[in-house]
């Protein structure tokens, strides 16, 4: 649902994904990894698609990545997003594990609006690094800053 203070949609945290958001609240980007065969997996799920183990750990990532793709949504959009449109939504592939890709936003600083970076500066392959901000519903989410 939309958070009334921020206008952002709030992640509905489930059992599989809860650790991701808990680590994010501590400023850490962690990805679920199989405790048995070490395979990283995203989005989180109960068992390993490679070895079927139900044991998992959460591996800390460097927080560096590259823009895999991006879009610039224009209205009609939900109100909290329409106010900022056009903004960017990106898929970031992680430098440590390029097959792990996260949807996010490139912003000028962690707390800046979704439209705070000139779209002309975005390109596929551009290096980014993670920063965290409290978004809708008090949930801390990763944002992405362009590397100089």
């Amino acid at each position, binding site marked *: 649902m939309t958070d009334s203070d921020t206008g952002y949609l709030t*992640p*509905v*945290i489930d059992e*599989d994904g809860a650790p991701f958001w808990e680590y994010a609240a501590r400023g850490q980007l962690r990805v679920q990894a199989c405790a048995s065969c070490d395979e990283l997996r995203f989005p989180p799920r109960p068992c390993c698609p490679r070895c079927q183990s139900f044991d998992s750990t959460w591996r800390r990532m460097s927080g560096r990545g590259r823009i895999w*793709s991006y*879009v610039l*949504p224009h209205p009609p959009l939900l109100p909290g*997003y329409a106010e900022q449109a056009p903004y960017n*939504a990106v898929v970031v592939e992680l430098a440590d594990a390029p097959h792990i890709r996260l949807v996010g936003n490139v912003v000028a600083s962690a707390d800046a609006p979704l439209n705070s970076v000139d779209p002309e500066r975005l390109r596929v392959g551009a290096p980014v690094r993670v920063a965290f901000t409290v978004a809708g519903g008090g949930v801390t989410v990763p944002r992405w800053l362009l590397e100089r």
Partner: protein
Amino acid sequence: MATLKDSTAIAGIGQTAFAKHLPGSEKTLACRAILAALDDAGVSPAEVDAFASYTMEETDEVEIAKAIGAGDVTFFSKAGYGGGGSCATVAHLAAAIATGQAGVGVAWRSRKRGSGPRPWKNTSVQLPTPGQWTRPFGLLRPADEIGMLTRRYMHEYGATRDHLFNVALACRNRANQNPAAIMYERPLTREMYMTARWISEPLCLFDNCLETDGALACVVVSAERARDCRHRPVYIHSVAQGLPAQHHGMVNYWNDDPLTGPAWTAARQLWKTADLAPQDVDVAQIYDAFTPLIPLSLEGYGFCGRGEGGPFTEGGALEIGGRLPLNTGGGGLSEAYVHGFNLINEGVKQLRGVSTAQVPDASTCLVTAGEGVPTSALLLRG
């Protein structure tokens, strides 16, 4: 191995008008389309004993069976993933009839999306997995989700907006020949396309399908029975569904190769059980909720190589007389967006020889369901 090959056929098709606003409920529209399809086949509603639909359908078979006066129903199914399920309805009916579970099957789609709500606005049901990983970041609508794949596709293979325009134009040109199409007598130019407002860059207004009110249905029977019906049978030659390894519906960003979507999986199964190959296809009805789904599907179904879907659209290839005439009723982009069911009925019209944009002597037609979600496909022959 037993196969479905040509053992069942589509014997009747029906539809309502297509418009932004139609009177009558979705249930009423569904009944009209189904009764029209049964009348077209020359089959009594009392003989219907099988129903197949796909998710995001608000009318269920209990209500429909009761309203149209069906007899005892012995088979019913519902395929998942919205627009990915359109062709699966016919596939399920074909399997049921070929294995003796039923004798007369009806598949349908009824929508009031032209005047009704957009499902993506219902955020409370969409935010649990996978929505929690995408929607808080403003990736809200299908156009945004497919736009993301499109940008990557353009980057990786050099596909251009002109390629997407070629798709939009081919569909619009066919709609301009089809009096039932919403975009009948409304031509599209390159300038209109290139200056259109953005929906989600790199996708503009004309890269998006039409939200429509309308309903369609078709009747599936055994090939033997079909030969006694009113029209030339359209045989169901092969069918397939496809849900690739590590796929994630609409936001297929998390498998090893996000640009090989469900079309690739469905295609492998479709051709494996067919006597035909892509070069034998006379006309194609390929799911076009968004223009980039066409080059992606052309690659997936084997009409060209990997990364060649953009260039394939050049030189009028998708127009009548081209290499692969496409969406000859106008498709979801320009006839009506009824979650792909109009593509099935248009395939039947082509093989009956009665399309408003008839491909001369068309005897084979590929019909596909939504790419980007777990999908389905049909290979039809006349």
